[in-house]
């Protein structure tokens, strides 16, 4: 048996869905954020897999940039969550529901 594109993509897809499930079902925003990172990783995996099997390095470049962007996002995002916590709020979905309807 050879490991083909399908297999990588399957992993990527499943991981993406797992991450999405986390986003949908976890209330702690930190965990949610982690799950988003997982989704990004899954997407990167798909990119790399395509890059490999299509014979083009652009995919990997994008994956690289995705990782960096994710890092920058995490920095800002966590700073934001810190700022939230500073105000005595818990970083959970239910706590941050002041504006609605």
């Amino acid at each position, binding site marked *: 048996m050879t490991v083909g594109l399908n297999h990588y993509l399957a992993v990527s897809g499943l991981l993406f869905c797992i991450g999405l499930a986390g986003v*949908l079902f976890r209330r702690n925003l930190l965990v949610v954020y982690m799950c988003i990172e997982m989704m990004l990783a899954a997407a990167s995996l798909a990119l790399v897999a395509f890059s490999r099997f299509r014979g083009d390095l652009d995919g990997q470049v994008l994956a690289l940039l995705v990782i960096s962007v994710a890092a920058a996002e995490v920095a800002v995002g966590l700073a934001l969550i810190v700022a939230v916590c500073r105000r005595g709020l818990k970083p959970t979905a*239910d706590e941050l529901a002041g504006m609605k309807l």
Partner: protein
Amino acid sequence: MPAIEQLVWGILLLPLISAAGITLFGLRRPRLAGVLSVGAAAGVAVLSLLVFTGTPFGEWWECSAEWLSVGELNVPVALRFDPLSLTMGLIVAWVSFVIHVYSLGYMRGDRGFGRYFAGLSLFLFSMLLIVLAGNLLVLFIGWELVGVSSYLLIGFWYQRPAAADASKKAFLLNRLGDFGFLVGLLLVWSKTGTVDISELECKLALDPGLLGSLATAAGLLIFCGVLGKSAQFPLHVWLPDAMEGPTPVSALIHAATMVAAGVYLLCRVFFLLALPGSAALELIAWVGAFTALLAAVIATQQDDIKRILAYSTLSQLGYMVMAVGASSVSQPPVAAMYHLSTHACFKALLFLGAGSVICAVHHEQNIWRMGALGKKMPVTFVTFLIAALALAGVPPLSGFFSKESILASVLESNVAARHALFAVAVAVAALTGFYMTRLVAVTFFGPERTQIAGQARESGMILTIPLLILAVPSAFAGFWGIDSAYASQFKGAAVEHAGVFGRIAAAFTHSPVATLWGLGAAIVGIVTGLAVYWNAATDRLPEKLGLVAGWARNRFYFDELYAALNEATHEFLSRLADGVDRWVISGIMVRGVHGSIELAGRLLRLTQTGNIQIHAVLLGAGIAILLLIVLRH
């Protein structure tokens, strides 16, 4: 005849100018208003005489001015001068003039003096428009305007609820008739392509089948207009109420001229009614007969002097309409016009006399509160008596001749049930004699029933002179050949009678059976009246007649019936439409759409819970749905 052509426009314009002038400048200046209006009426009277005499006997001519012309519809203001319109115009002009003068006295000091004369002038204009119109649409305009001026004058004392209501009622019932008239016009126009009377006559003469199967319908629709204006059954109920207007108005409009316009119209379009294959005339005859009988019965049990006269008018109009209906091409409706003319004089006289009486007894109108006025008001009494006798058909007064000719024409008509019609006509003649006797006996003879009656005095010159003027034609019109003037209108029907005596004798020689019956009926009526009401203190008849009298007294409950009918149909539909508008259109449709959109908004925004997780879920669901939709295509 160029000179006359210039003059005829004056006939129309003088009252119009007067009406406009009074409206603009004369509402607060009674003298100006009076001068203008009476001046105009006098001018019209003179002009109409000039035109009458200026037109050779039995000939006709037209003049017209551009007014409205679009596509196939061409409506000039066409004036037609033929024996019918000339004679009718003459009567209208002169009776009007007399009543104008009378009004000067009757209305003196009223706050609305100017307004009154403006209305009167407007009426004169519109009436003349009807009479002279050579075009059915122009006639219709006059027809409508007559209704308007009648509305304005009946409601002259608008502060009185009764007057205000009466004016409304009169206008609406007239409108009902006009509706039919207009539809009739549309029908005629669409079939023949013209509304010009001469043209129409020519076309129908060339091709009598032009209207086809619609001939009866067209005739009856036009007759609808007559029903309204001449207050024929079933639209008769407005006329008695119209007596809420000032008495001269009742005399002029609701006795002499406007209500007669219906009969005039019937004669005007007689060629159309008498088309072969049209059954219109027979129905018209019966409507007239029924109205005549009904009104006469009601008149016997009314106590208001003006209302008695009003019902009497109704009855006489029914008589005329019946006469038209009983006519045919071979026997044209000369009798109807003849009676119309004489009736205009003596009925106007009766009303003016009644006005004089009412003035004398301080606006008391119930005859049972009068009595013994004959001695105190000799002029009024004598003239009134002449008119009453004329109405009752006592020879040799004018009413005798005209009524005789109606009876004769009914008896000799082609209508299938002419004997029944004749019987009705005779009965009405008897009833006429009866209620007129009742009126005269109770008002002018007998005891002074109230103090006011005792203090009554003869009215002033300005009121009595018109009475005297009108008394002349009332008494002697039968000797002049008015009927021959009309007869010349309908060619081939002219019967020439030589001299005054020939004319008197003609009534007997022409159709002795009818004359004798009529005369007998009148005598029976008068004698019975005298027997019952001579020196009577109260009305003894109701006890004897019981239910019939009660019905008659209550006008056979037509008003109540109509009110209920209106409530059940038109008002009901209106209420229904209003309900639909309020609940269905404004409610369900407009507010419903508005409300459901607002509700949708309020529901939809519940998705915005503010909870990030729900947001994420909705985002995920949104993407999923989008994917599903897009990929399915």
